[in-house]
């Protein structure tokens, strides 16, 4: 298991995980946002690797990806961004999240080497499941980079057991059947599923997809180890960018939102 991720989960405090797309709306803004997220109480930072065809994402993250690609953000630039963050921040885990094609194109072993050099701690590859990830998984494991497994409402018990076999770091429970940014309504089923998974593993479980309000966060903190906030933050970036706001205002917007959902003044 990766040390940075392990250390974060040593405390009992519920974890706040955020997602932004690298280079949305440009790399300088991403740098400033990532510099500040830990100051706003963020425990783990997910960074999206832009892809032209993000089939599991809703409109908000699709557009973020498109904005980044327009700025010619590729994997090399994503790694530059991670290296930049690591110059000043040795503590906050960085998880790269994205789709398999750009990685395959970059080369699996080159990708993992770069991850290691850039201080990346974990990977979430949306369209790569245990059936097809042997090569990349083994490379990641050897380099102490966690493969963060997704578990969803459709995951069967048998499948859950297979997924847990090669899981490390933490588990990401997808709260809904749907794309990122959709609405989460049914907390009972999420709670039950998390309880079921907790019986089988000691890994921390965080919940993501559709989480936008402090009421939702409060409910989830009762039974899970953390929440992932993605589309809501990307939406703040999108709105401010559309209004030509300065980076200062984007940061203020994100800070205000994160304080609110954590119920802090």
């Amino acid at each position: 298991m990766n040390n940075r991720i392990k250390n974060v989960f040593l405390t009992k405090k519920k974890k706040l995980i955020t997602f932004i797309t690298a280079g949305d709306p440009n790399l300088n803004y991403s740098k400033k946002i990532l510099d500040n997220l830990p100051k706003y109480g963020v425990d783990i930072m997910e960074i999206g690797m832009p892809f032209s065809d993000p089939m599991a994402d809703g409109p908000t993250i699709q557009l973020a990806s498109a904005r980044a690609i327009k700025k010619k953000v590729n994997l090399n630039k994503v790694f530059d961004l991670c290296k930049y963050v690591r110059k000043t921040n040795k503590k906050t885990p960085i998880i790269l999240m994205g789709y398999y094609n750009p990685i395959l194109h970059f080369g699996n072993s080159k990708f993992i080497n770069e991850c290691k050099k850039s201080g990346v701690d974990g990977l979430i590859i949306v369209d790569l499941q245990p059936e097809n990830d042997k090569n990349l998984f083994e490379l990641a494991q050897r380099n102490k980079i966690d493969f963060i497994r997704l578990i969803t409402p459709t995951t069967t018990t048998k499948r859950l057991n297979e997924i847990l076999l090669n899981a490390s770091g933490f588990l990401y429970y997808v709260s809904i059947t749907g794309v990122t940014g959709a609405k989460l309504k049914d907390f009972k089923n999420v709670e039950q599923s998390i309880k079921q998974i907790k019986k089988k593993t000691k890994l921390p479980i965080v919940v993501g997809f559709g989480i936008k309000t402090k009421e939702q966060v409060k409910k989830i903190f009762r039974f899970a180890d953390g929440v992932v906030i993605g589309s809501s933050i990307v939406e703040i970036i999108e709105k401010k960018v559309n209004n030509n706001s300065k980076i200062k205002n984007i940061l203020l917007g994100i800070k205000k939102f994160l304080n609110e959902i954590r119920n802090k003044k």
Partner: protein
Amino acid sequence: MNIKNSFKNWPDESGFFGNFGGRYVAETLMPLIKDVEKNYNIYCKDKNFINELDYYLKNFVGRPSPLYYAERITKDLGGGKIYFKRDELNHTGAHKINNCLGQILLAKRMGKKRIIAETGAGQHGVAVATVCALFNLPCIIYMGSKDITRQSPNVFRMKLLGAKVIAVDTGSRSLKDAMNEALRDWVTNVKNTFYIIGTVAGPHPYPKMVRDFQSIIGKEVKEQIFKKEKKMPDLLIACIGGGSNAIGLFYDFLDNKEVKMIAVEAAGLGIKSGKHASSLSGGKPGVLHGNKTYLLQTKSGQIKEAHSISAGLDYPGIGPEHAFLFEQKRVNYVSVTDEEAIKAFKYCSKLEGIIPALEPSHALAHLIKVAPKMNKNKIIVMNMCGRGDKDIFTVAEKLKVKINE
């Protein structure tokens, strides 16, 4: 015969044709796709299922489609003897219905209450809307807004058949984006919805399942050509976007080594222009829409927009079995431009009294190049996989003819 010495025993258990295929989708979809596979494996051997499919193929679609000796074109080109497999005479005007019937019968048996599909040229969308009307299931079709404009007759047809057509405005606003959006719908409505994929692509078992349902084309050709010529064809030729009509024609002949095969990709404005849809000539292996295959992509692994005058070929990928047959050199993959396809479109209309769709016009354009070089006793079978009624507006525009004046 084991998997190694036959081309017909692929994919393997994990859905790979050699290096290609597989299942690259979000975790949410994995259990459901495995369920589709499990059910398909049961029903493809089930007598009732097979009989019901046969019944509809015969009585609703009008199969078998004729194998027609294109006499005037044969004489005009002065080479090999040319037959058209007339799949454009199927109900709904293309080969797409063969697969849709198979998949909707499976969806019904799986108790699914809602059908979704993507479409490019609209032929698959029309075929899905048709079988949904036939079996009284709600139907949602995703179609790129660019394709909605250039294939308006098919959009109207789908609506008449009771389907809801949803315009997709993201990305290149064509087939690949329609498929992204259909996958997003599926991941959201995964419990009650069946996704009828229109080509031999997508996560396993789709490439195999669609191929199996389309392989009736080649099976019929084998019987028909034997009756007419008492021998195997020397050359099979078909156009290829995702590749369902091509594999449908080829599959039954794959182990008949004497039968040569050519699949014709769309070269759009020319391969060198960068504006084309030739995934094999201009692409590299990658992962998109649930399978590993050849894809048009940038240096950083972003999927490139395809270009073709034919909406049905306007896709930056190709079915994984074709990627495999390409690397095995079993099938020869070539490409022809928009311009050559239009020339063939006009040529066939005037000479044979058949207005072909722009998709098989690509196959025909290549046939025009190779037939004259072949001996008169050689037999060529081309898959006339769709009719051209839907394309008259596109062609008129290209030829600068105003239809309504």
